[in-house]
């Protein structure tokens, strides 16, 4: 709160003489006289608060007088008048009525005055409004009539009735509505005297409703009866009348509703079914029950819902009979209704329904069995579970569990030993879901003895779920230890029991597993070691270190080493353990694993150790990644050290990793570091921008907003920040790069002055912007007073994970005057405008517009700019572009705007590389999709990369274009990791020269579709052991389509073999013979 406002509050309530208004309020009231809407709103805020806080009548009187005083002045600006009248609506009293009443005669001021008067409870306000009825016309009259209606001013009934039957149609309609709102018996009479019309009938219905609510029931019923003497003018009116009748006179509504069940109009029929349920009359239930079998299936479903919802027991027999309906939806509805109405003898019926062929019926029956009220239901369910027909026993058992029936424990015990697999399975499941500690030993014994693999797997799951609910360690470990020690336990069962211990964790379980690993039979030892390697908590860290060092079996050694590395960072002295493990490492692959473990330790020692790995080319990338991760964790604690370390990382590696290191350095060093790093990285940044320009274009000037205010290219144009302040977003440099993290911002617009533009060539302004803090920014771009772009939403990082957007727009030559132009980034929403970088590019001299190169090059368009947040397209797209552009016959353009799919020039490209997925975005729209489809059909080639297989969920045609698409219902992919891509077709041009290769990527296992495809490469899933297509081709119309699911991250695309695959594919799709 400002000091000024605080002073007002103090003065008003501080106990001083209440009737003396404080000076700031009086000053504000004076200042408000000049308020035209254009200037400061500060005095208005002061007055608003004074009004809101004024509780004392004396203060309110005084304040109202002060606020009303300026209104006598006819020249008062409209915004000031509107404001003051709104305050008087809150605070005005009889004293202000004359001033406001006088305003009613001035058409320009009447509306403000009328709104104040309507809100004032004083009868004088009503008198003033009534008096005005006689002399006003047009909109002012309409307003006054509404106000009297809203005030429910009974004294206005006579004059309003006169207007209602008068010649002015607009005023008459308003008066009819106002009489309906006043709803006095006199108003109703006046309305009844008017000729029937939909508006009058509506007003009469409002009267009846309000009279009913006001307790004048007989009058309401009379009105209602009067209304029903004439036919309703429309279906809507018929429905409204019926709703009113149900409330006001239920007995009379009953025959209307009964007849309505056979009405031709479906909506009315269904409304009648609903009304019957809510009528609260026993006869209504009978009507519904009697009509049930005559209704259509769809109406039956509605009726059953109503019967269940209102527990209309009179309909129970009819519900039972439609449980045999041929329509599944009716059976499901009947089962649900029986759940509310039924008795013990319905258990058998519902159990039969629980075995229905239709899943919805089964589900409804199971839910009904769980809630079925009444005596004897539990016994009936238990009996059915124990000795019912075999097909129903499992369902009965599930029902008993859901009901938590008495005697369930005993029953479970029997069912766990049942000879029928189905019953046993249900019993095991029930134990896992709802069992308590007492079942644990029993379930352990079941697992130890179970022979059927499916049941064993279920028992394992159930034991884990149950064990996690047991607080006592001994209670969940000792029974398993006992079973493991028993000689009768088969090795498969023992392995399962050990896995249960592994999932539960803890010291006691660890001791048992350790013992098995040391002394068990070979199969048991193997299982125990595997469980140990996966141990969930660091208590196993020492064991794993020791055993990894001693292991002879190479598989065991690898598993144990991985486990040890996984747990080491979680222990109290991680570095000591990691140093010990370092001695065991063999080969660079294990070195990389070690660095990955190291990266989770946040200490200066760990940082040093990571830096130490930078010198070794084989592990350099992992060392850099570890250093960056540790650096990020230490940035605030040891800024100096981290900055130095990140400089070393940035010098040792290139690309995204160097950028990430710089981001951490900025995190540690703030704006200063950002400036230094931006300048250091300038050559790389400008080179990257230049590379993206079309042939013949060059970068003429570059300015990193937030770092510098002005740049002057030697002999070229200059860029100067004319409006905008500097800001560094904390945490942004790591996400979007140093350049994007520093910004210029301004509450209205960030302005850049450009000078030195020569008129002989086309100019283009490029920029990056980013709504890092997700402020809701939306901006437009202007040059020389012309709008070049927008308003457009900026990509937001926090909560949305969208990287900064780079864009370019042509500067219209007519906007450039004397080589100068002002470029403005205007705020269209949110608190201010921001821009991260601005640059200028110039086209070839003599040409006025950019033209594509005339060489017989093939044009390839990479479309990206939107993806699932885990897919950093801003990092992967450049790698993809570089890989494809190695083929010098291809001119590659990257578009970060998926709307390009709708661009008319799309068919001008020879191939499109789709590296895009419409994540949380409706996509470019049906028109753009159609444009894209036609483009491919017409002969432009298509290459789909990784998650592009999910680009358009819900567009049925896409599967015919892409061959296979992401099916979210299937298991998505193997965990990210290494696998081998096997080339199975060496006759196809794309893969003709290629060998199988290893990569680290996501192996997608969820592609769906039956469009014919030609598979070129596959890979075997570690999870399901089957081969999945990795690369394939097809034709869509004249278009060649190549689809590969490789390319989860920059590293995956940087794999030379993956790059080669996409390069060859792009060439092939564009109609060329692939070359390396």
């Amino acid at each position, binding site marked *: 709160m400002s000091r000024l406002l605080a002073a007002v509050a103090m003065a008003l309530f501080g106990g001083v003489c209440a009737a003396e208004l404080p000076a700031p309020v009086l000053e504000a009231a004076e200042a408000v006289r000049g308020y035209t809407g254009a200037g400061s709103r500060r005095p208005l805020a002061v007055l608003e608060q004074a009004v809101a806080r004024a509780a004392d009548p004396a203060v309110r009187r005084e304040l109202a007088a002060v606020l009303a005083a300026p209104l006598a002045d006819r020249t008062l600006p409209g915004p000031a008048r509107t404001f003051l009248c709104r305050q008087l609506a809150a605070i005005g009293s009889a004293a202000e009525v004359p001033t406001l009443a006088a305003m009613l005669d001035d058409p320009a001021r009447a509306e403000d005055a009328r709104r104040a008067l309507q*809100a004032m409870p004083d009868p004088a306000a009503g008198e003033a409004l009534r008096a005005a009825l006689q002399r006003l016309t047009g909109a002012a009259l309409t307003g006054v009539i509404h106000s009297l209606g809203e005030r429910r001013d009974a004294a206005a009934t006579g004059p309003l009735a006169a207007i209602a039957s008068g010649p002015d149609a607009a005023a008459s309609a308003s008066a009819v509505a106002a009489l309906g709102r006043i709803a006095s018996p006199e108003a109703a009479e006046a309305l009844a005297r008017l000729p029937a019309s939909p508006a009058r009938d509506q007003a009469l219905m409002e009267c009846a409703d309000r009279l009913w609510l006001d307790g004048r029931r007989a009058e309401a019923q009379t009105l209602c009866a009067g209304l029903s003497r004439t036919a309703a003018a429309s*279906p809507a009116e018929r429905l409204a009348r019926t709703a009113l009748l149900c409330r006001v006179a239920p007995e009379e509504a009953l025959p209307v509703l009964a007849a309505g069940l056979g009405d031709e109009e479906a909506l009315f029929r269904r409304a009648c079914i609903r009304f019957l349920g809510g009528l609260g009359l026993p006869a209504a239930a009978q009507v519904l029950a009697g009509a049930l079998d005559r209704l259509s299936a769809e109406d039956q479903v509605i009726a059953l819902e109503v019967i269940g919802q209102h527990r209309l027991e009179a309909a129970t027999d009819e519900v039972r009979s439609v449980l045999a309906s041929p329509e599944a939806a009716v059976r499901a509805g009947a089962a649900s209704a029986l759940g509310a109405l039924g008795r013990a003898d319905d258990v058998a019926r519902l159990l039969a329904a629980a075995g229905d062929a239709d899943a919805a019926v089964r589900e409804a029956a199971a839910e009904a069995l769980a809630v079925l009220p009444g005596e004897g239901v539990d016994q009936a369910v238990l009996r059915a579970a124990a000795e019912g027909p075999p097909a129903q026993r499992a369902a009965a058992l599930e029902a008993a569990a859901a009901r938590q029936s008495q005697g369930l424990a005993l029953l479970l015990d029997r069912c766990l030993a049942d000879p029928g697999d189905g019953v046993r399975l249900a019993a095991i499941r029930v134990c896992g879901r709802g069992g308590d500690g007492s079942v644990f030993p029993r379930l352990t014994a079941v697992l130890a003895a179970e022979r059927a693999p499916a049941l064993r797997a279920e028992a394992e799951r159930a034991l884990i779920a149950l064990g996690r609910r047991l607080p006592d360690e001994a209670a969940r470990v000792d029974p398993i230890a006992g079973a493991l020690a028993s000689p009768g336990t088969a090795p498969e069962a023992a392995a399962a029991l050990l896995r249960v211990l592994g999932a539960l964790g803890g010291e006691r379980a660890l001791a048992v597993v350790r013992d098995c690993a040391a002394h068990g039979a070979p199969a048991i030892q193997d299982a125990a070691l595997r469980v140990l390697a996966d141990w969930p908590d660091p208590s196993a860290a020492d064991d794993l270190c020791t055993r990894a060092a001693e292991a002879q079996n190479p598989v065991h050694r690898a598993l144990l080493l991985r486990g040890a590395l996984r747990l080491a960072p979680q222990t109290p002295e991680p570095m000591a353990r990691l140093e010990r493990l370092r001695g065991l490492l063999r080969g660079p692959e294990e070195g990389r694993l070690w660095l990955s473990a190291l990266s989770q330790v946040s200490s200066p020692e760990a940082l040093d150790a990571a830096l130490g790995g930078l010198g070794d080319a084989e592990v350099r990338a992992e060392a850099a990644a570890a250093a960056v991760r540790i650096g990020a964790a230490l940035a605030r604690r040891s800024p100096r050290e981290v900055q130095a370390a990140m400089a070393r990382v940035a010098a040792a590696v290139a690309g995204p990793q160097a950028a990430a290191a710089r981001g951490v350095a900025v995190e540690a060093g703030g704006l200063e570091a950002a400036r230094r790093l931006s300048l250091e990285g300038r050559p790389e940044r400008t080179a990257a921008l230049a590379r993206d320009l079309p042939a013949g274009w060059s970068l003429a000037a570059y300015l990193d907003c937030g770092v510098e205010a002005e740049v002057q290219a030697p002999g070229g144009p200059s860029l100067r920040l004319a409006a905008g302040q500097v800001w560094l977003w904390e945490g942004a440099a790591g996400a979007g790069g140093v350049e994007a993290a520093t910004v210029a911002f301004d509450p209205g617009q960030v302005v850049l002055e450009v000078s030195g533009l020569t008129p002989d060539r086309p100019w283009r302004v490029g920029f990056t912007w980013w709504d890092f803090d997700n402020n809701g920014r939306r901006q437009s771009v202007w040059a020389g007073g012309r709008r070049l772009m927008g308003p457009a939403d900026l990509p937001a990082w926090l909560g949305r994970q969208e990287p900064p957007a780079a864009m370019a727009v042509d500067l219209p030559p007519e906007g450039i005057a004397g080589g100068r132009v002002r470029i403005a980034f205007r705020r269209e929403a949110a608190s201010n405008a921001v821009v991260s970088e601005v640059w200028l590019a110039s086209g070839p001299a003599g040409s006025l517009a950019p033209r594509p190169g005339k060489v017989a090059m093939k044009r390839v368009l990479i479309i990206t700019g939107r993806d699932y947040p885990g897919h950093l397209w801003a990092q992967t797209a450049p790698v993809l572009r570089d890989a494809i552009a190695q083929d010098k016959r291809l001119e590659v353009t990257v578009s970060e705007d998926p709307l390009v799919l709708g661009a008319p020039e799309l068919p001008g490209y020879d191939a499109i590389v789709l590296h895009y997925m419409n994540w949380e975005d409706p996509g470019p729209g049906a028109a753009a999709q159609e444009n894209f489809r036609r483009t491919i059909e017409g002969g432009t080639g298509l290459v789909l990369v990784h998650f592009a297989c999910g680009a358009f969920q819900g567009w049925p045609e896409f599967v015919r274009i892409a061959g296979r698409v992401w099916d979210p219902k299937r298991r998505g992919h193997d965990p990210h990791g290494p696998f081998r891509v096997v080339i199975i077709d060496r006759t196809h041009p794309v893969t003709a020269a290629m060998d199988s290769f290893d990569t680290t990527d996501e192996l997608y296992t969820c592609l769906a579709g039956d469009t014919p495809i030609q598979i070129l490469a596959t890979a075997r899933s570690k999870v399901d052991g089957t081969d999945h297509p990795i690369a394939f081709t097809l034709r869509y119309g004249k278009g060649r389509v190549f689809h590969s699911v490789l390319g989860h991250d920059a590293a995956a695309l940087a794999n030379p073999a993956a790059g080669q695959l996409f390069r060859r594919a792009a060439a092939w799709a564009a109609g060329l013979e692939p070359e390396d």
Partner: protein
Amino acid sequence: MPRRAFLKGALAVGAPLVLPARVLGRGGATAPSERIGVAVIGAGGRGAGHAEALMGMDEARVVAVCDAFLPRAESVCHRVNAHYGATAGPAAASCTACQDFREVLGRPDVDAVFIATPENWHAVMAVAAMNRGKDVYCEKALSLTVAEGRAVCDTVRRTGRIFQAGTQQRSDRNFRFACELARNGYLGRVHTVWVGVPGGRTLPVLPIADPPAGLDYDLWLGPAPAAPYREGLCSFNWYFVSDYCAGWIQSWGVHHVDIALWGAPELAAATLDVEGTATFPEDGTADTSVTWHARLTAPGGVTLDFASEDVARHGHGCRFEGDEGWVHVVRGGIQAEPATLLRVTPRPADTRLRRSDHHLADFLAGVRTRREPVAAAESCHQATTATLIADMATRAGRRLTWDWRLERFLHDDPCNRLLSRALRAPWRV
């Protein structure tokens, strides 16, 4: 990537979803005669999102798009027609754009309207639509004032129309589950519901200008007082100007407050003691609260602690806290203490809340079967009212007592005068 995210993403933006046919109680395809004709009123972000979502739902057909800013209506209409043209043939691409919503209320092919305009318009449009025999889906908050909200509820009752409010968290399993935990005693006795939502914004003085071509500004203002057009007012910034909306305390607040009342209905049963503090912009075009902290206490002692998230004790979300545990729910996430609460299987006698997993589908099913939707007008009226009385208490700076039955404050006539506002003629509810 997580597979679940597809669905989440789709719900977040209202993208097309494939609905299980049994939501509608029958087998899939819709006969053209049964298809619900929809007019979308207000073609900003929400309206366009609804149009987009409806395009993917076979049981509805968007036949009209309205906006006071005609180019916006035309752009959405264009997308609608492109979609229907491509999927159902040129004859289906018959959606039309218009500026004045009254045009569509007279059209017999419009069965239902989706209202996605600023708050000052909600009640006027909803009441007019229902009186003309249309079913209504209306964005939250229900209304600008308590009196307008009452008028909407009365009209639903009087006309027998189907009404769904845009408090779509009611169609999210996590929110429903949290409320069921609270209502069925799994948290012990619930004593506090903590609600935190994004705070409001300040604005500069938006410059007065001529309205852009294509915008009928007088129609945009509608029942709000006459005022000069300002740059940037008519998209987004209106949220923070009290002539059009009571601010995010209302328009965002209503989402989680609705959940609070769903899970703790005793908050809306009798009376509430309301007190609170807030900060307001000192200058600029915005005049609604920027941060606030209000406490609304029911007679039994249950308190709704309602704050902007920067001052909220537990940050963003809705947390039911009882003497045996708590559950904290946000969009896309739910947490509980003890965590085992999240694995609770309901007991047979538990109160189960209406299950809806898709807010638009629930409304369309309501239109077809005349079932009251999950976010009925009365529920959203209560939630909207709770946010408005919290706002009034912070402005008045004194403790107020709200009576739900009378829908008035007890012993505070000054504040009772703020419960309604006169509408600019010729508009009325």
